[in-house]
């Protein structure tokens, strides 16, 4: 289908973009990579009066490191995030997630800021932000706000962004030398939405894993940190962690996949990821009948 009629502006600065959003209120939406927004326009699921294109604003894309933090500009394309040498060295979790994000042509155009602002619960970057303890940097007409990923993703396509605010960057603390990570995603077809996904980080020492963060996606209305399961992994109890998931994840009713099956898949990928982080064989088997 064809998109409905709308106006378009391509501001040359962030201030100009924020002013346009403020002036047009809820009738205006920012356009980042457009790989979800233009889809919804073509399908006539949205009808904004004005698109404010962020693509010509200098300084919104790019990756840099300072003071133990890797800053990824919001308009950095998926592909540029995952292939960047700095990201590959410092944040290998993100590089591992990249091939799971849709297809090459989408990754060439879609942006990390757009993905984070959209907050599709089945997508990779929001879960990576949770696992990697990222800070989402947003700018509004008045000021900049810095929001921890744990406080940013609030529900289905719902974030802590206020009307008129734009995500400007995502900042990840550089993991220490003892950091380990894991990423797993199951989908029906290559590049399709996740049936179940997991982005995980931890520190590995002589006594096992500490600081385990398990960010599941595709399993609820938002990416979810499974804290009880993480505590069980820290205690070295993978089976216990798999069992704990039923109390932490509430997979949606979906005609294509029963919630119990989705939960089963979550346990399977947790077994794989935990095995890898513990440097032991994967424990794909599940403790309970589902």
């Amino acid at each position, binding site marked *: *289908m*064809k*998109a*409905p*009629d*709308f*106006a*378009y*502006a*391509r*501001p*040359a600065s962030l201030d*100009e973009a924020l002013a*346009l959003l403020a002036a047009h209120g809820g009738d205006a939406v920012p*356009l980042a990579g*457009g*790989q979800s927004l*233009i*889809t919804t*326009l*073509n*399908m006539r699921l949205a009808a904004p009066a*004005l*698109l404010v*294109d962020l*693509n*010509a604003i200098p300084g919104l894309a790019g990756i840099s490191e300072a003071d133990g933090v890797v800053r990824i500009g919001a308009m950095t394309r998926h*592909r540029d995030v995952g292939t960047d040498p700095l990201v590959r060295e410092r944040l290998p979790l993100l590089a591992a997630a990249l*091939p799971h994000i*849709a*297809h*090459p*042509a*989408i990754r*060439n*155009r879609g942006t990390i800021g757009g993905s984070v602002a959209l907050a599709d619960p089945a997508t990779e970057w929001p879960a990576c932000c949770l696992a990697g303890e990222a800070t989402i940097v947003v700018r509004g007409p008045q000021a900049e706000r810095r929001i921890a990923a744990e406080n940013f993703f609030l529900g289905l396509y719902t974030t802590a962004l206020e009307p008129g605010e734009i995500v400007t960057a995502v900042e990840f603390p550089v993991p220490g030398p003892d950091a380990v990570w894991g990423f797993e995603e199951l989908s029906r*077809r*290559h*590049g399709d939405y996740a049936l179940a996904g997991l982005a995980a980080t931890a520190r590995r020492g002589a006594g096992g894993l500490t600081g385990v963060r398990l960010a599941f996606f595709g399993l609820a209305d938002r990416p979810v940190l499974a804290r009880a399961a993480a505590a069980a992994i820290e205690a070295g109890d993978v089976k216990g962690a798999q069992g704990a998931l039923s109390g932490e994840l509430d997979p949606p009713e979906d005609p294509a996949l029963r919630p119990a099956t989705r939960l089963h898949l979550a346990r399977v990928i947790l077994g794989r990821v935990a095995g890898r982080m513990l440097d032991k064989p994967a424990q794909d088997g599940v403790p309970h009948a589902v």
Partner: protein
Amino acid sequence: MPSDAPDRDTAVAREHAVSFTLNGERVRCQVPARTHLGDLLRGTFGLTGVHLGCEHGVCGACTVLVDGRAVRACLMLGVQAEGATIETVEGLSESGRIRDLQDAFHARNALQCGYCTPGMLVTAAELLAECAGEIPSREAIRAAISGNYCRCTGYHAIVDAIATTAEARAARETAE
């Protein structure tokens, strides 16, 4: 305003002037904001090799190169072409750059109805350019074309054609 300032259109409007490089030629036109790049290329420039299948980013038939990268023409607005270098399957084939790939598709019978073929060729062209003489695995080829639907061939012949082209290019580079 100095006269040599770039002609930046930052106004709010339902229609904009755009100028960009299309298959090696500088072009200018007016385009409504709501028109996606695929419709602009087909309607205004007659480049009907840009096939429109799903128009929501799933099928890959409309894939074109924007600044050297494969992009869905249905998921980019025509007005966003401003300043870009865009190549369609027409440009790629007329320049001879993918002659070997086209020959391999022909030889291997890697198409039946042909609807997906322009998108497949453009996607494969990006993959082959990125490989720069390295031979991608069949798995890598499958991952690269995973966003391009073909409902006729079952993909095997397409993977064969891309693999054959990669091997031939690598062999040529070694020989040179």
